[in-house]
């Protein structure tokens, strides 16, 4: 008898020729090709895949990958003031210790009987977020803030039976692009102006645009541009008076020092959890949350998994499982609410670990130190002639717009100069908000030491002369 012998890759155990032969024999075929009997000749790919030569030894692969990755410069060896929805915060060692556990990293969709821990960890995540937000219902994470906001808007449309959403025009343009695509052609988006001096929502403009077609008013607090919007209750009241919902996007890490949106009338709250124990990972650490009150009319409109606590057949034992599964697309396909699939669960578990570590005092102290450091940065930046920080005359949290219009240099020139000094300047806003001219969005968190900020100031001093 002839036998096949071939190279056996470590990832493919049954390439062992003897094993292969044995399995073929069990199936009753001579070769693997016979198993593809249903794929007609004309659909067959004839050529060889155009791929580089394989690097099957782990060492060779490691060398190759390290070589490519060495062409990156990270925020570890540089000082970065980039934020704009992806924020550099300190990641406690235990967050990574937990999220790299094989048990969590490689689990997927098991039943509570194999994956009780996954259900409990995500239930705890929901519960911890519930405390932060002072709301009773929080979803298993969706993709990111942009998706969370998109779903928030669509939920409002379904709850009210209306098809227009008013959105504050200080929202991130990228986030708005996601929302627009997600809503088209079912829900239309109308922008509400801001006051140019303070950044705050122009309530007159809101009142002039809100109508019986309005499903909800969406705004962010702190806003994308960093300022705190103190008119939350007024905006919510205007929405409610018109039969619309108040929809608020929030940076959860601000909620040690800022009241949660549920305290100023928000009906649906959303945002990103990357800041809660997640790395920036070139934008791969994002995860979105959506939260509401525990009312059936809200709960039944969530597309996401909602893990709930229940009992089991053994007295006193906690069990966990899906709440109202039949509202999901897993249950009823296109009759479900939007869709559910693979989103960002691991970052939910991570955020749960983070909030457990931080505790009530930690979240307060964190908010305080971020406020102090960002104000210090603004104060120092404002010392330069022709530089205004913040641009908007409002209190800010973590991020702020720096106005370089009077400095004689463009944001691009400044950022280029800073880069030479191992500093990543804030995000250039000239594309997103052309009306602002040469402005940049700077982000300062607890990771920015006084020394880091002073280095920025010194480099800017040299740059601006």
């Amino acid at each position: 008898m002839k036998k096949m012998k071939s190279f056996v890759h470590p990832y493919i155990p049954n390439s062992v020729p003897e094993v292969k032969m044995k399995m073929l024999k069990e199936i009753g075929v001579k070769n693997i090709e016979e198993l593809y009997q249903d794929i007609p000749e004309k659909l067959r790919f004839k050529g060889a895949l155009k791929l580089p030569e394989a690097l099957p030894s782990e060492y060779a692969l490691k060398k190759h990958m390290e070589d490519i990755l060495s062409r990156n410069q990270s925020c570890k060896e540089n000082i970065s003031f980039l934020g704009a929805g992806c924020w550099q915060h300190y990641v406690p060692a235990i967050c990574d210790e937990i999220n790299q556990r094989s048990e969590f990293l490689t689990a997927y969709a098991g039943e509570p009987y194999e994956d009780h821990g996954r259900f409990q960890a995500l239930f705890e995540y929901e519960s911890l977020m519930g405390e932060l937000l002072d709301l009773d219902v929080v979803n298993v994470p969706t993709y990111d803030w942009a998706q969370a906001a998109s779903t928030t808007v669509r939920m409002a449309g379904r709850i009210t039976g209306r098809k227009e959403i008013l959105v504050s025009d200080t929202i991130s343009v990228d986030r708005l692009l996601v929302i627009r695509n997600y809503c088209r052609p079912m829900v239309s988006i109308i922008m509400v102006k801001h006051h140019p001096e303070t950044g705050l929502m122009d309530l007159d403009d809101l009142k002039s645009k809100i109508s019986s077609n309005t499903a909800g008013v969406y705004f962010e607090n702190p806003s994308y541009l960093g300022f705190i919007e103190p008119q939350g209750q007024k905006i919510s009241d205007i929405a409610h008076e018109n039969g619309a919902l108040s929809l608020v996007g929030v940076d959860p890490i601000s909620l040690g020092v800022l009241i949660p949106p549920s305290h100023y009338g928000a009906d649906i709250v959303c945002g990103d959890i990357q800041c809660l124990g997640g790395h920036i990972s070139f934008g791969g650490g994002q995860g979105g949350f959506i939260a509401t009150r525990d009312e059936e009319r809200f709960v039944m409109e969530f597309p996401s998994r909602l893990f709930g606590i229940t009992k089991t057949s053994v007295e006193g034992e906690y069990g966990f499982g899906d709440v109202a599964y039949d509202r999901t697309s897993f249950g009823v396909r296109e009759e479900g609410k939007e869709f559910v699939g693979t989103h960002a669960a691991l970052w939910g578990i991570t955020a749960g670990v983070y909030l457990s570590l931080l505790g009530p005092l930690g979240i307060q102290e964190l908010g305080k130190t971020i406020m102090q450091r960002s104000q210090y940065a603004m104060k120092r930046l404002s010392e330069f002639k022709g530089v205004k920080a913040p641009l908007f005359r409002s209190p800010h949290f973590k991020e702020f717009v720096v106005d370089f219009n009077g400095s004689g240099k463009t944001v691009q020139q400044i950022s280029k100069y800073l880069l030479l000094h191992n500093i990543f300047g804030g995000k250039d806003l000239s594309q997103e908000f052309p009306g602002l001219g040469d402005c940049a969005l700077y982000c300062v968190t607890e990771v920015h030491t006084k020394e880091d900020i002073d280095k920025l100031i010194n480099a800017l001093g040299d740059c601006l002369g």
Partner: protein
Amino acid sequence: MPWVIVWVKETVKMKTKKAKVRNFHQAKWDEPVIFELSTKGERGILVPEAEKEIEEHIGDGIGVIPEQMRRKKPPALPEVAQMRVLKHFLRLSQHCLGADLNVDIGQGTCTMKYSPKINEEFVRSSQVAELHPLQDESTVQGALEIMYKLDLYLRGISGMDWFSFQPGGGSQAILTMASIIHAYHEWQGESSQRDEIITTIFSHPSDAAAAAVKGYKVITLYQGGDGLPEVEALRKAVSERTAGLLITNPEDTGIFNPRIAEFTKIVRDAGGLCGYDQANANGILGITRANEADFDMCFFNLHKTFSSPHGCGGPATGALGVRKELKDFLPVPVVEYDEEKYFLNHDLPHTIGKVRSFLGVFPAVLRAYAWIMSLGAEGLKEVAHIAVLNNNYILEKVKKLRGASAPFAKGRHRIEQVRYSWQDLSKDTGVTTEDVTLRMADFGFHLWSSHHPFIVPQPFTIEPTESYSKEEIDEYLAGLEKVTEEAYEDPDKVKNAPYSSVVHRIDHSTLDDPEKWAVTWRAYLKKHKGQK
């Protein structure tokens, strides 16, 4: 060189070990909910306080917050010391069987393959973990190179012309395909007329659901006697209202539709676009492609076929490929190369905008790239071959299990998975799929039923991938055999399972009752413990 097949004459006798289930018991810590571990005053981590000079300059920093916006009462998070937080979540992890511990072949449709550990080292390095998506392009050339090259590789694997890695999972990739279909017809001036999308019942639920998000009426083709959607049914379904087709192949039954090119032709002739859901691509890598079947676009799940770990349900990537005619509709930005440097192109005239923030889930892109680099062209084909070999081996064995069957395509081979049925077992013994899945947990295994609706009665779906050795597969099969034997001999034993799991049978009634469901601990305390 390594993949050259050599024919040798001698035979080597392999010992056959009789597979048996193991005497398993999952860890059971009876672990409380984190809030129950709280002791006032304990700290899990301290944050870096502002330096003295900053404090002197700024004061407490929070005085500037308008009074009505100040949070005075801190959120009621638990207060737990660091080691206890660690211990708590480690215990929860032990209450979870990932693919690394499980023979995770019972989660059909999900391609639970090995996620190489070396790739975790890469994504956790500071060159990835501490990379900001808005950095100057000159500082992220390595990351952009990986994205660009993976795009090239996937072009080869699919025959498509351009990829986007922005979608954060398969469902979001389906939404992106539906969005492109919509934008395309809008550009053609036909978006209001073309308001129907066609899919099949054995395609993923999101093929129907994401189309509905874009406002489409969904037409679902059901299977004919051979388990496949029928060409005649499609002919009747298409019209001037057809916007597009969203379909998997092989479908979740593991049956490859040999007439798929007729399907795409019928839809294209009717003016629709064809989107290929390639969530089930693991058995056809290097064998057949979206291009040969005349699709306009397709997507691969990098967290399934291309080895990025599933992470309890994400983060993930649905890598979306389109023909060059549709490149201008892709979400922005796309990564390009000008022979000197890699750069982001935000300027696509018909772009649908964005579907996810920034550039998608780069760590998943990186892992897929590294996985392909490790295997190469022949290796990818070997992945497909062995995935199909393993699947058909299991098919032969499951068919022989008492009470199990593999509906449709009798006598045919399958591609990478099979949707089986316990209908006979259920009729004979009263033991349902759910009962079997719970009993399998006692042997350290997961068995998933299937997506709804249960067209196949008492369904279960097994997809072995290329990752598990024959011995592991045999052990899993021994588990199934043991449960079926028990079902016939002592059905109550199965119906009362599990016995060796972390928990016992869960009361689902609470979870569907608005008066009783509790999605958070605070809701639980209010609804079940009488707290205000």
